[in-house]
């Protein structure tokens, strides 16, 4: 179940827009925050709160790559691999994460600590390669500092 605060937040979202359907993306963010990912149950809750057809809610959610359709680890490592980061060596980092931490793209480490997602451009090309861990930006990555950074996420 979505807790009272979450429900309250969604109710408040509704009045930001002329139509309640528009609150769908922000509501999905809230549901993802609460459930960790968008399970059927989470989608149903959102559909009910906003009184939207369930299939439509799934249709919208599934279009956006930041909405997750499977459980994720405690920390989500979103490493950019687009051109500027690639030029700056992101492919090497992907290999490094795999050999050093056992992290594979689109998978969660067995201890549940990290999920690795290879991202399209995250807007940090000037400080490439870069990644977002959860909601924190980390830029100018190297094989040395990426390890230190990941150590701070348990």
């Amino acid at each position, binding site marked *: 179940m979505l807790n009272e605060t979450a429900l309250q937040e969604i109710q408040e979202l509704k009045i930001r827009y002329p139509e309640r359907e528009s609150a769908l993306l922000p509501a999905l963010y809230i549901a993802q925050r609460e459930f960790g990912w968008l399970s*059927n149950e989470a*989608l149903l809750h959102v559909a009910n709160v906003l*009184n*939207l*057809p*369930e*299939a*439509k*809610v*799934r*249709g*919208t959610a*599934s*279009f*956006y*790559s930041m909405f997750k359709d499977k459980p994720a680890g405690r920390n989500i490592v979103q490493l950019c691999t687009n051109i500027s980061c690639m030029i700056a060596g992101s492919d090497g980092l992907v290999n490094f994460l795999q050999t050093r931490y056992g992290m594979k793209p689109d998978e969660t480490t067995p201890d549940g600590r990290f999920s690795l997602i290879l991202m399209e451009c995250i807007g940090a090309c000037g400080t490439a390669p870069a990644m977002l861990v959860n909601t924190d930006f980390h830029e100018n990555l190297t094989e040395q500092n990426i390890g230190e950074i990941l150590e701070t996420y348990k």
Partner: protein
Amino acid sequence: MISLIINGKEIDLDTPMSVLDAARQAGIKIPTLCHHEVLKPYGGCRLCVVEVERMPKLQNACQLMAADGMVITTESEEISEVRRSILEFLLINHPLDCPYCDKAGECELQDLVNMYGPTVGRYKEEKRKVPGSHKDVILARNMERCVVCTRCVRMCRDIQGASAISMVGRGNRTKMAPFSAESFNCEYCGNCLTVCPVGAILSRLYMHSFRPWQIDEEVDTICSYCGVGCSLSVQMRDDSIKRVVPKIGAGLNRGLLCARGRFGYEYMASSDRLTVPLVKNNGKHEESTWSEAIHIVAERLAEIKSRDGGSAIGGIASARCSNEDNYIFQKFIRMACGSNNIDSLSRIGFAAAQKYFEDLLGQGITANIIDGLKNSEVIFVLGGDPTAINPVLGLSIREAAMNGSKIFTLGYARGLDRFTALQIDVPVFKEADLLEELVVSVFTAKGVRGEKLDVDNGIRIISEKLSGYYDVNGFNEMKNSLLGSSSVSIVFGPDLVQRTDGHRSIFAVAGLTYLLEARLYLLSERPNEQGLIDMGCVPDMLPGGRPVDIHDFRSKFDLLWNGTVPAEDGLTLLEMMESMKRNEIKALYIMGDNPVFNLPDRPLVTEALEALDFLVVQDLYLSETAEMADVVFPATGWTETSGTYTNLERRIQLQKKAVHVTAGMDDWKIISDLSCKMGYHMSYSDAEDIMNEIAEVSPLYRDLSYREISRGNCLWPYHGEPLRGKINELPSIAESEDTYEADFYLAPDKPLFHSGTLSRMSPSLNRISPEPALKMSDEAADKLGLGEGDRVTFSTSLGSGEARVSIDYAIRDNKVLFSNNFRDNGVYGLLNYKMDRITKAPGIEGCEVSIKKMQEH
């Protein structure tokens, strides 16, 4: 006016439209895949490209608006090349399984590839794997074949208003899916099947059982389930029905169908059909011959007539039978049996409301075109869920809502849940109070109209007793919307008729209709409820709405029918039951209905039928009622016989014979044979012959012929003054100050997937909805400690039933709903009633029910 040239042809347009539509109108075909004429342009497939003079790039015809002076070419080497490459793109990931795919032969992709030529297979990679699903009971999804035209999703969302499926994923990972990804769990209208251009969505009803080109006959007819009467085509191979398909753009449904219409056709081929007449001997049915059975019936009826008089015989007609059947039936009861005791089960809803509305406002007041609903600014829906009772009519309401009309609902209307501006909640069974308040406040605002003095007076009488202050959430909003709109429609369902004071609601709604100049629609559960009234299958009216008790009309019919029409009004349905119990009516003839199961208070009905000396039933199956009959005649049904039906908007349509009949006889034929045996001569060569007579005797069907009816659009709104004399009865303010304090009340549910007891003979509908459910609000379930799917027994003072619990968020009071479709497990039998003294409908409100959870083993 817009003038343009397409392929050298000059085209003039009165209304703005796309180049594609303009071309099609002129008979020029432009290939499309994502476009479908019932849907809005989408522009996804890019096959409809055309050259437009002075435009640099090729343009998409589906989205380009035709403009004055345009010069367009729809076929050229370049265009073909583009189309060929688009098709190549589509084929790279499309499986080449045409030999196996049911769609082959009517696949739009296949046709297009044939037309624009195959391409060299330059694609060497593996084809995309997209999981499909074959877990649904009706619809198979083969998502590898999907061309992502999204027609199904747009149909489901924009036309059906169900939004049960969606495109899921993005880019080339996009596919169509229902929420659960497996079972569709939808309204099963199957309209997605209609629009899927390829074999991505297929029906399991006929999977791998034929090829489209093996269809050897196609008959255009109408659906047999409800009072809408949708047009459809029955496709056959070797005299057996292979499938039912809609015809895009045709009929009042313009190509849409509901689950019953599309998937409910199998009942005709049920092995439970009666094949020979049955005669009861020592309490047991024995097979008989037609001549013997007819002989017995003729003899017994004649005997009772001569002994006890015609009024000792009663007849129950059927809203499932055609106008011709019903016309013959009442003529038989009146002329051969000498009785006006003719009614039908329509009395418990449609017919009762219809009569009182017409008494108040004049004949034809409910003759409004369904299509007009979508142009209403405000629609007030009460007494039932149109999307379940008359699904395709319900779609017009949804369409109106999607175009910005305001929908108000009073009472349960789940299918409109997401489309309503406001659902009005009143204390349980107190709707009439609200409606009287509403009509009085509209009256106060609008003043006397002075056209129907009876109605003006009636409202004035009510107003004297009201407080003028009404505290129901949304009351004022609704009132103001109604007053502020120049096009109001009112959609009235059976629930509010089935009240002891049902006439109060009807009167108030009549008042609103009159004051607001609203269009009134009466929901109609069965296909010929209106026709049956028109044919005179009511105790007080001859065909054409001519009152029995007016001498002039009677003598006209005496002449036409060559005999004497009994002078006195007959008894209505419930009055007949009472009369049978008192042993006054001694013989009952039932054509195509099942009162034991379909009427309230089963013990009472059983007792009444048991008291009879003689009971005859004509039916397709050995129904609960037929089991009690002394003689049972097997009848023919839908697709086996021709006849006309008059739908709720009073459109007269032809239902056509399609299959060869192996058992049973047409209803009218059984009766006319019988009539002859009884000495009243009837001789008709076929149903058309009967219609010719109807056209002669009925002012409502004057000059109507099968030829004209086949052309469609035979609508007969007849705005005469009431033909039935003055209304003597006006409603009075709440006679009973009944209070409703029980925990739960039992009330009928009208489900979408079933209709009467016919649908239970349709395996596919049974697969969609295999067992009845006891529907209740989540609050009620909480209170009872029940969860979705729990098994319960529930009982009233008359008996008990068993079902699974289904929690329904659209129920907002303490009613629990149960349907009346499954054998020996229906709601009506459990409800006791008090008759409304004006409409003669059964008041079934306030029936207390207790619910107990069963142990699962």
